[in-house]
């Protein structure tokens, strides 16, 4: 058949085993029923397999992956928050320690300052006492010295007068003269 038709056909010849010889195959109504039936069977089967097996499985895989990624991200976030909290706690402890050190230094400085002040006050008080004692002593000495001045003056006058006139003055005259001079 092939050899004979190859010589005579004009391009669209249909072999003898066709449903309706001579028609263009896609428009051959004789094959429609069979094609629709088998399409319904195969496509129905495909739809059933897709909706019952394949698609739930793939969506399950994708969901697992999404959950896993979301879970990992959440875990990473949690760890980050933990480390942030640790850093914050560390910094707080550091700040507290710094504050304590400051306070101790400040207290120590204040205590030392008060101590020095107290000692200085005590020393100054001692010095004032000693100064007062010394002044009192000086005043006493001065009083004593002044008390002796008359006597010394009398003696000196006696000696001077004796040397000048060769005769010692009387006691009464001497005292009168010295007293008048000392006034």
């Amino acid at each position: 058949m092939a050899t004979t038709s190859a010589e005579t056909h004009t391009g669209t010849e249909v072999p003898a085993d066709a449903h309706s010889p001579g028609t263009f195959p896609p428009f051959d109504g004789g094959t429609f029923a069979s094609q629709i039936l088998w399409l319904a069977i195969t496509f129905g089967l495909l739809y059933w397999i897709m909706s019952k097996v394949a698609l739930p499985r793939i969506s399950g895989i994708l969901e697992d992956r999404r959950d896993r990624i979301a879970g990992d991200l959440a875990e990473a976030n949690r760890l980050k928050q933990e480390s942030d909290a640790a850093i914050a706690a560390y910094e707080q402890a550091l700040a507290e320690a710094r504050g304590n050190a400051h306070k101790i230094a400040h207290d120590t400085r204040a205590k030392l300052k008060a101590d020095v002040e107290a000692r200085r006050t005590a020393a100054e008080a001692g010095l004032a006492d000693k100064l007062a004692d010394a002044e009192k002593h000086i005043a006493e000495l001065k009083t004593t010295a002044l008390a002796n001045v008359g006597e010394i003056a009398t003696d000196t006058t006696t000696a001077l007068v004796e040397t000048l006139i060769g005769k010692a003055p009387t006691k009464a005259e001497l005292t009168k003269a010295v007293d008048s001079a000392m006034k």
Partner: protein
Amino acid sequence: MANDPIHQFQITKIVPIEMGGLDLSFTNSALFMVATTAVVSLFLIMSTSGRGLVPTRWQSMAEMSYEFVASTLRSSAGNEGMRFFPLVFSLFMFVLIANLIGMFPYFFTVTSHLIVTFALAMLVIGTVVLYGFAKHGMKFLKLFVPDGVPGALVPLVTLIEVISFLSRPVSLSVRLFANMLAGHITLKVFAGFVVSLIAADGLGVMGPVTAILPLVMAVALTGLEFLVAFLQAYVFTVLTCMYLNDALHPSH
């Protein structure tokens, strides 16, 4: 017969079945429908059998096809559209694999028969109509009366909308069918030129030399046809998603 570009669309009976006066034979077309279903199912089931957290290459392909169709459906019909996901996914994979299987020499292309693409288109439109009326009742008819149209124009616009709705299954099915049919015929014609030129008497050495031209063309067309095989499956899917969107949200 070897050079007849129409021969590849011929349907031949493998197991003749006759019921109630109807010819329901298991044909080469049915065989390739079974093959398409088998390839899609085996691909998706075997590739995902590991359920790996880190996918293998095959599992990655299965996941890609899943997410590709899912994002197409979600962007056209929103999250509510995901209830039709098994249908849309089955349609996409069936058309895509049927188109790709048809690219093998001597293999039958299921989608090159109008009745098959028309049946798939009617499945889509039937789903749209049934779901539309089930969900929205008579409000589904608002699909034909767009908002904001002046009163006088409503009958005209409604008529246009009805005609456009009725032409959907036709355009949806003819687009896929005609693309596959025309592509395969062109490919066959150019491949036939190669053979004819080599075998031609009277051209001498020029026969095989000039045969290079249609050969280059046939190779280029093969690449183009792979693109068309994917593109038409995608177009079919996108339009399906848009029509399903009408069923979900009838008012424009």
